[in-house]
């Protein structure tokens, strides 16, 4: 089935609810264009920021004449600049994501589309990319709700034909990205280089949020007594005897792994959110992400 045959990702009511949210940006960043976010730069807003001594060439309209009257010195008033930010949305498109009921990649596309629309509606620059096969495939950053259709179309394109290489893909994206702002990684992190990928993305001065997406049977596996587990991504097989002991050990290891990722991301000022693929999208956006201060 092609992308044009797909039904619309969201209905109107859902989009209107989305417009009431915006991605939280806990850091002030320097944008490229004038926007609705406070910038570290001084600019033209009404919010006073500081004074500095007048220098030749400064705009005389910015002089504080009241201060000159009291102190007989020329000071220029500085205001907080309001600029846009760049929202980076990265979707893991490795084959391990093309698994589960509901499908993890489908769930990731929908979450990315919703979060991207949320950025466009906030007049932020939105950059979306698929990670996989050691590279990042994205579209040019876009701005404004008029680009939403283009965003949805890009996210609906067939994917999940790539091999792993999450670390290489993240490094590739980090090296060429422009603009800072919230960075949302939607991935199952089922890759030996997941820590390298997180380290590279956290090092971009963006505010990293990791949406750790796992299928229900990855959270609560049901393994027959004698099974050969075949990796959906690599084809590699692991033979197991699905007794309760093994399943329990799996649960323990999974919890340890999630704790390890959470700790890693938190230490770098990011947010770590565990997302089951069968979680309702509305619950994710309006409840889970809001509680974790990823959106507000």
């Amino acid at each position, binding site marked *: *089935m092609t992308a044009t045959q*797909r*039904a*619309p*990702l*969201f*209905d109107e009511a*859902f989009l209107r609810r989305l417009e009431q949210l915006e991605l939280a940006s806990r850091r002030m960043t320097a944008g490229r264009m004038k926007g609705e976010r406070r910038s570290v730069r001084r600019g033209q807003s009404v919010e006073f920021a500081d004074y500095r001594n007048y220098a030749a060439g400064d705009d005389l309209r910015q002089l504080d004449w009241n201060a000159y009257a009291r102190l007989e010195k020329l000071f220029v008033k500085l205001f907080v600049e309001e600029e846009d930010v760049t929202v980076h949305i990265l979707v893991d498109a490795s084959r*391990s*994501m093309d*698994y*589960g009921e*509901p499908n*993890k990649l*489908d769930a990731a596309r*929908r979450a990315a589309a919703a979060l991207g629309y949320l950025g466009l509606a906030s007049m932020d620059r939105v950059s979306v990319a698929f990670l996989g096969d050691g590279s990042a495939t994205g579209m040019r950053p876009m701005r404004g709700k008029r680009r939403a259709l283009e965003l949805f179309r890009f996210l609906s394109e067939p994917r999940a034909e790539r091999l792993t290489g999450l670390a290489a893909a993240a490094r590739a994206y980090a090296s060429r990205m422009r603009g800072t702002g919230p960075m949302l990684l939607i991935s*199952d992190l*089922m*890759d*030996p280089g997941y820590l390298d990928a997180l380290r590279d993305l956290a090092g971009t001065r963006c505010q990293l949020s990791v949406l750790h997406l796992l*299928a229900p049977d*990855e959270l609560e*596996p*049901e*393994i*027959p*007594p*004698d*099974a*050969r*587990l*075949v*990796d*959906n*991504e*690599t084809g*590699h*097989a*692991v*033979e*197991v*005897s*699905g*007794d*309760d*002991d*093994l399943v329990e*050990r*799996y649960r323990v*290891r*999974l919890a340890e*792994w999630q704790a390890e990722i959470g700790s890693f991301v938190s230490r770098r000022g990011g947010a770590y959110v565990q997302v089951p693929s069968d979680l*309702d*999208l*509305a619950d994710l956006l309006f409840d889970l992400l809001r509680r974790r201060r990823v959106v507000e």
Partner: protein
Amino acid sequence: MIAPLALVGLIALPIIVAFYMLRLRRRDLPVGSTFLWQQLIRDVEANAPWQKLRFSWLLLVQVLIAAIVVLAAARPFSAVESDLAANVVLVVDTSASMATSTGDENRMDLARERARDVVGRLPVGGRITVVAAADTADVLVSETDDTDAALEAIDGITVTQLPGDLTDAFALSSALAQRDADSTIVIVTDAAGDRLPEVGVGAPVVVERIGATDANQAIAALSALRRSGGAQLDLFVAVSNPSTAEATRRLEVYADGALIDARDLTIPPGQRSEALVTTVPGGARLVEARLAGSDALITDDRAFAMVPADETTRALLIGGGNAYLENALALLPRLELYAVDEDGSADAIADAAEAGTPFGLLVFDGVVPDEPPQLPAMYLDPDQDAAFGAVGDQIENPVIDRTDPDEPLLRFVDLSTVHIGRAREVELADGMHAAVETTGGNPLVAVGEVDGRRIGVIGFDLGESDLPLQVAFPLLMSNLTEVLLPAVEGILPSSMRLGESVSVAVDPRIERVLVTNTGSPELPGATDLGVEVSVVGGRVTIPGADLVGLREVRAVSEVPELSDLPLGQTAINLFSVDESDVTPGDPQRIIEMGRVTSTDEPASQPTRAEWWWPLALAALALLAVEWLLFHRPTRRSLGRAFRRRPRRPLPLAGRAR
């Protein structure tokens, strides 16, 4: 262990372990990634057919199940105390009363079940002999320690129509018990009137008594008498009710297969009701009486009688004159009675012989001839020795002992209310046997055959007793006459009891005789349907019948005129008061036949308590645990199949595939 060879099955244990070490062909299960699994599983890349054995609860459970199953198959047991000795003689009563069957009681089934229980209680290393006992004893398995063979023999035991007589069984058991001092005789019986031997056995006797019901009525007597002139018949039928409740039964009478009379009889408990049927056609040969409906024992609900031939015998009564005796003899249809005093007796006998009308029976009332007569004779109150034996002193007020219910002389005769003032001591000659005795063992009524002549004796004066005033008197005289002058229909008597054999003379040219039984093959225990018997020296012994009904004997010979020649017919009946009284009896009288032990408590012996069934239960429980714990995916998919509900639609219209 009873079957230690089953332990060979333990070889299954290393095989199970080997299966765990062998790399199994596993089912492929696609997963998103094996990233986490690889961190859990080691040695995943081994390609060798064998792998290192790792601890597995599943392996443990399966090895445990296999071990338990093998152990159960070996039939382990522990020694527990048993009330039986090491050598057990198990006697199962198969007499007619054991055919008692009501809605919830089938005595033969109960007997088999109780006998199997005895086999189960056999001590360790014990031996058992299984005996089936009716009127005789039949050893089915002898002194075996093979309990399976004993159980198989018990399953093959069937009931007979024969009256119970434990004399043979006790004799046999006693002989077997004498070989081993540590013996117990176990008798499974309803204790309903089985005859017992007079001497006990040298081993303890344990009685497994069965049965509860007493709801039975029986045809206790059936006799066809030809009236004077012989044109018509009178049929006398008695129906007894040994139960404790009044019963109303319909009596049906058939003559040569045609129904000629039917009437309802109401019989008080413990009593009997009699009927006289006078509508039997004079030409009838076989009459049958039936009790319609059913009761606990159906064997005694039918009786047969051959109609006696129309012939009379001249009888001479010698003595001082006794009106009761004369009347009783005169009423007997077979006799043409003449009377004479002692002095004229010799002349009367000689005259009759010369006239060509000799006497067939002599009755001496209070006298004894000097010369023993060459005819059948009946002596009443003999005052001196004669052919029957020696006569001694008088006995005052003798008490009649318990009588043999199977004695033909006492057929239908009840002497329980007879009183005798004085009797004579009599020592019987060889060939004579007492039918009625005093409690001291002195014969009161005896019959027998001495020097080829039949003799009957009544050892007391009729005037010194109330016997002539009772119904028993004419019946006793009739029976005594029948014994002294047997009515022979061909080579067989007109009536025989079950199990009674007879030796008769036949034409020497006959090689064999075919004995067939007809009448009631549907009754329980009906197996003797036909047998051929060889003729030796012109005589043939007809074996006892074990089937109520009509018995017929035909010749088998190469001589054309003798081939298939009918030789005789006789009616076979149960007519056993004891067997018809199916009320379970007191086992104490049987127990007392055994050796009285020196201690109150019977010596206990170790016996086997088998463990196979709790082991089997344990194996089953482990199997259930294994399924619950280790087949969870199967269990869940089954659960989902039952609980499947329509899925809730997604709130977004996104995922249309």
